[in-house]
């Protein structure tokens, strides 16, 4: 699959925020997603369409409710493209170290 739509979708702070919100709580409705973000339903819909077209969000109908799910598979495909087998563990160790050092608690 073409990676351009994924990069375009990720190149926007609001859309990244929407993905963060789905990661925290998967399967939200449009209303649940825009409420705490102080965003109109119209604006949120526009962003969600871009995320859906990039395959980063998957919508599932449950009765009359449209639920949105974070789909990390395209991001994993990008990861695999540039991260080699042997870099993986070193990167994870670095990431853990960074998290530990930056965590104030």
């Amino acid at each position, binding site marked *: 699959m073409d990676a351009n739509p994924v990069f375009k979708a990720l190149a926007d702070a609001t859309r990244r925020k929407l993905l963060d919100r789905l990661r925290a709580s*998967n*399967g939200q409705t449009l209303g649940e997603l825009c409420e705490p973000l102080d965003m109109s339903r119209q604006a949120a819909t526009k962003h969600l369409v871009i995320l859906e077209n990039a395959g980063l969000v998957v919508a*599932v109908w449950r009765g009359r409710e449209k639920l949105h799910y974070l*789909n990390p598979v395209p991001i994993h495909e990008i990861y*695999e493209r540039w991260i080699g087998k042997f870099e993986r563990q070193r990167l994870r160790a670095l990431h853990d170290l960074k998290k530990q050092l930056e965590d104030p608690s």
Partner: protein
Amino acid sequence: MSTSKPQFVYVTYISTTPEKLWNALTDGELTKQYWVRHRNASDWKPGSPWRHEDYDNPKLVDIAGQVLESAPPRRLVLTWANPSDLADPAKVSRVTFEIEPVKDIVRLTVTHEELESESAMLKGITMGWPIVLSSLKTFLETGTAIPMTTTREGWH
């Protein structure tokens, strides 16, 4: 059937046919290639057991369950648990594979629901599915899976 809200929905588009994708999910000789050298073993008939076992040591079963629905090459529904937890309904989750042709390619949707919150299984599948599914896609499209998924050692 429960009406609970699915917890995870994963989608990947694969340049293949529904038949080849079905075989890649259900034939242990193929699952071993991209699913961390594990065999998915069953006769895939509704009501039959299935096991996700170590290809080289089939006594090591990591996941087990029952086939709830089987409609090759379009839809497969399984229960999913640690073998030691199969008797405890709270620890048995459900996985649905849906295979739909879209133009010349195939859309695979994997839905995982009824997972126990805060469980090791929940943690494991959150990390595992994106890796296994992108490796499955790479395997079907290029004939070779992602290196970390071809051996047990590569996984960690």
